[in-house]
Each structure stands twice: as C-alpha cells, then as structure tokens.
C-alpha cells in the first residue's frame, strides 16, 4: 500500500521534472540549434519542468542528434551508462531516427536505435522546436 503510494508520488515527480542532456553523435549541428531554441523565451521549456543539464549523472533524458558514426558509438554508450536509471532516450531529427541521408556511408552505423533503446523518435531535418516539445510531452505522458 505504502509502496504503491510512493511509486505514484515518484512517477508524478518524474513526469514533472525532466532534466535533459543533449549529445551530438556526429550530426551537422542543425538539430542542436533547434534544441537550444527550447531554452529561449519563445519556447521556454522550464515551464514544463524541463531543464538542460551538463552532466550525464544529473540527466533523465538523453536527447541524441545526428547519425551514429563509428567513432561516436563508444562515447554514446558510455554517456548512456553513466546516467542513473530511470532514464529515457529521445532521437531528435531524421539522422538520429534512421541514419538519414548518411545511412549508406561506411562510417555511419545508422540511427541511435542501432546502439541504444530509443523511447521517442522526432522526425524532421532539422525538426522544429514545437516538434521537440511535442515529443518530450509524449514522453512525459508515457512515464
């Protein structure tokens, strides 16, 4: 009884406090600039409890941008394993979803889901800030 009540409280807290770490696995920086837009007055995501963090130990959500290159794979895995669970991965942009236009390159492994389990895919090249917010809200609803 007490346990389930605590679980509900914790789930409420997790829904309302999402700290985000963004990681570029080898993209063109377009999506990163769209992610930065989320912090600006126009899109301000702090009103949803979403905050940008710099350390993977503090983060709940890993926002990945860009196709996963051979070089970035170990780094991506390392960052993900440094995050304390419960944790979620969001693939931002077409490259991050599938590998995008770089899929056939021999240095590209594909989308983020070739390395990590992805919870939300946000398409677009680059995706609009509104789309990123919608993706994050979808994630919040599924927590």
């Amino acid at each position, binding site marked *: 009884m007490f346990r389930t009540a605590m679980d509900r409280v914790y789930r409420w*807290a997790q829904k309302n406090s999402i700290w985000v770490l963004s990681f570029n696995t080898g993209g063109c920086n377009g999506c990163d600039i769209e992610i930065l837009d989320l912090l600006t007055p126009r899109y301000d995501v702090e009103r949803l409890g979403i905050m940008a963090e*710099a350390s993977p130990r503090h983060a709940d959500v890993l926002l990945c941008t860009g196709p996963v290159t051979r070089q970035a794979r170990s780094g991506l895995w390392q960052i993900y394993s440094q995050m304390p669970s419960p944790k979620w991965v969001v693939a931002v942009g077409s490259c991050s979803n599938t590998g995008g236009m770089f899929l056939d390159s021999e240095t590209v492994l594909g989308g983020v889901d070739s390395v990590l389990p992805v919870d939300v895919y946000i398409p677009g090249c680059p995706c609009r800030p509104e789309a990123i917010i919608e993706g994050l809200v979808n994630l919040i609803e599924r927590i």
Partner: protein
Amino acid sequence: MAESLFYLLIFPGITFQLVCGWFFEWFDRKLQARFQRRVGPRWFQPLADLLKLFSKEDLLPSGANEFAAAALPLISLGAVLTAGVYVPIAGFSPASFEGDLIVIIFLLSVPTLAYYLAGIISAGIYSVLGGGRSLLQFFSYEVPLLIALSGPAVMAGTWSIREISSIQAEMGPFVLFQPIGFILAVVGLIGKLKRSPLDIPKAKSEVVAGSLTEFGGVKLAIWNTVMNIQAVVGIFLLVNLYSSWSGIVAPVLAVPVFFLESVLMIFVLSAASAVFARLRIDQLAGLGWKVLVPLALLQLLVVILMGV
C-alpha cells in the same frame, strides 16, 4: 524537552528551513526566468525535482570514496540546519548566545569545504577542477565577507546576532551607517552560495557541474537542499545584521517586514545573476584582494572611528 524538539524540528528548525529553501529556489528561478522574459517554472518545481532525484538510482564512478560521498552532503546539511536554528527570525531566536555570529559564519563555511572534498573524492577530472576552484574562490570572498560582517558586531559592541538586531531599534538600521559593508556582504554571500556571477566552481560551460558532476540521485538532492538552505540562512543573517526593523515598526508588522526584506534580498541576488556575466577566477581573486578587502577595512575603520 517538547519545546526544544519543536524548535529543532518545526519552527526555526528543519521544516521551516526546508520550506524556505524550496520557496527560495522557486522564487529565484521564476525571477530569473522573468528577467529573461520567459515564463519560468511552476510553483511545485523544487519539490518535484527533489522527489525525482530521490527516485533515481545511486551511481558513483569506480575509484570514488563511497563513504565520504555519502557523508559529505549529510555533514553539510547538518551544518546549515544548525546555523538556521541560531539565526533570529524577526527577533525570535530560542537558541541565541553571545558569540553565535562566529559560530554561524563557521557553520556556513562547512558546505564549501565539504564541496571541495566532494570534488576530490569523486574521481573525475571536472570534479577535481571544480573542487580546486571552489577553494580558490573561498579564499577570495571569505576575508572581505568576514571583515564586512564584523562591522555590525563592532558597532553594536556584541557578537550575538539577537543583540545586534535588537540594538538597531535604538541606533537605526545599520545599513544606513554601513552601506559599503552591506554591499560587500552581499557580494560575499553570492560568492559563498556559488551563484552567478561568482559561479566559477560550477561553471557549466567550463567544468560541467564542478564538484557535483559525478553525484546523482539522493546525494545530489541533498546537495541542492544544502545550497538552498545555505542561501536562506545567509539572507536571514544579512537582514538581521544590517536592516533589522523588528524594534522600530509596530510589533504586528515585525514579521511581515522581516520576510519582505528577505524576499527583496532574493530579488537582489536574482538580479545580480541575471545581469552580470561570470568572472574568471583570476578576476575574482583580483577583485577580492585588491578591491573588496581594502573597502571592507575602510568600512571597519569608519565604524570604529564612529564609535570613538
């Protein structure tokens, strides 16, 4: 017995400090958001952050000292909560004694030293850098802060915060006589709280999150609580030392005026964060020793000459 337990656990103690700390964090973030024309966080944001961190896995890098990593945030929390009990709230202080100002100054320095140690023991490059920076910053702001805070004590002729705050009913608020000292104390407080523009030890773009880079989950939650309560105690302390109106205004108004002044202090701190850019560590050391210390000594000299 029951009375002391109430003092410790409810009113000037843990519960009151925690609630004030949450209010401080929310109000500060909201103000900074409004300064940047954003909407800002919702009112329950600090509570949600805290509970979220409690629900997370507790991870530390291999090579970190687990015992010290668990003990340091708890020691700091104990130190700031103890300091909170000794600070009078609108003239009410159940545990006041002669010399408690010195004890509070010491207790408020404990989190900084623990922060340095936390950086050293958590086995990460950014943590060690942040820890070293925090110690260097400590040596820059602490001396002018101490000299500035001794101004009200010298003027009142006592080291008890309650006496200093009540003597202002006769002499008038000390901020009128020591404006420079007050400004120096605010700068020192910003340095102590490691807030922007003096957030050198935890500069996001330089050392990730400073000493706390490798801390997550419950430990990070306790560290955040420590920072909030440290801010609250520091603000209450400055209000008591420099601008205590509790003996001047009508007794009914003493409590509202006290909290209004505290809120104004949060406003000042947030505005400083929103307006100024971060200093480099050498700039801070230069500012501390070449500008703030001489000004503080000058203020102290004026105070002593006024008393003669």
